[in-house]
């Protein structure tokens, strides 16, 4: 079973994506989708990624909800900054020391921070674990560090490590 399906999540999502794209459950597309799902899993196995284990699905779902709300809020914030520029707006870089080391967790954090308007992931130092973040509307550095570490890093650690 491990040989046939080295990455069950990956294969399952590939199959699901294929079926969504075809919008049908007839045997033809299903068979093709199955073939692609298996091939995708084997291709990923050749890249030898670290094994992915999601420990807490509940925390993952809660994090997704928090992120959706945060992105909506920062959409409004950035739209306001663009349409009504304030003279006292400050932009800048902040450094955030991360304890997160898991590749998948870091990739997820990168997706969250980049998808959020107002924060841009600029650089991550693997050795020291320091993330360089650019913030469009920087009011208080300390609170940004707290937000990233408390709201995102903590749940990601629970989910992946």
């Amino acid at each position, binding site marked *: 079973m491990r040989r046939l399906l080295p990455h069950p999540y990956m294969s399952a999502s590939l199959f699901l*994506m294929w079926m*969504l*794209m075809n*919008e049908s459950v007839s045997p033809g597309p299903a068979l093709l989708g199955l073939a692609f799902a298996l091939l995708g899993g084997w291709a990923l196995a050749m890249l030898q990624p670290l094994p992915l284990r999601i420990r807490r699905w509940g925390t993952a779902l809660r994090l997704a909800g928090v992120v959706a709300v945060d*992105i*909506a809020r920062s*959409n409004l914030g*950035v*739209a306001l*900054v*663009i*349409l009504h*520029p304030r003279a006292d*707006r*400050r*932009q*800048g*870089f*902040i*450094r*955030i*020391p991360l304890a997160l080391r898991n590749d998948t967790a870091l990739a997820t954090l*990168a*997706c969250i921070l*980049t*998808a*959020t*308007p*107002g*924060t*841009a*992931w*600029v*650089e991550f*130092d693997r*050795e*020291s674990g*320091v993330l*360089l973040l*650019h*913030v*469009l509307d*920087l009011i208080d*550095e*300390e609170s*940004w*560090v707290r937000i990233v570490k408390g709201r995102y890093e903590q749940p990601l650690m629970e989910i992946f490590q």
Partner: protein
Amino acid sequence: MSHAADLPLWAAIPVALLLLAGAGLTLTGSIGLVRLKTFYERLHAPTLGTSYGAAFILLGSMVFFSVLQSRLTVHELLIGILLIITMPVTLMLLGGAALHRDRLEGNDPAVPPEDKAAEPQADHET
């Protein structure tokens, strides 16, 4: 074939609102690309279009085709998933390239040096 005119009013209104909201956000992001002064600020502008801008338009499309064809149409979700996965790669590469160049040329005093000090810092007034 199905046409937009066949859409009942109760569905047409939310679809129109969703499309307007999505297009408005995306337009705002594009205006930001013109208005914002520095490269790092401009990195933030297009994310309006790729986050809720795209989400509203895709949601509108989902409602539109689901109602018109009387069956659930959700393959727009794929566009959203692929956007979320691929967009960070582009923006991180752009940001990293800009940072590398600015450090080499030293032409922007706001760009933090490559020190390993883990203390938060911010500067550059706009």
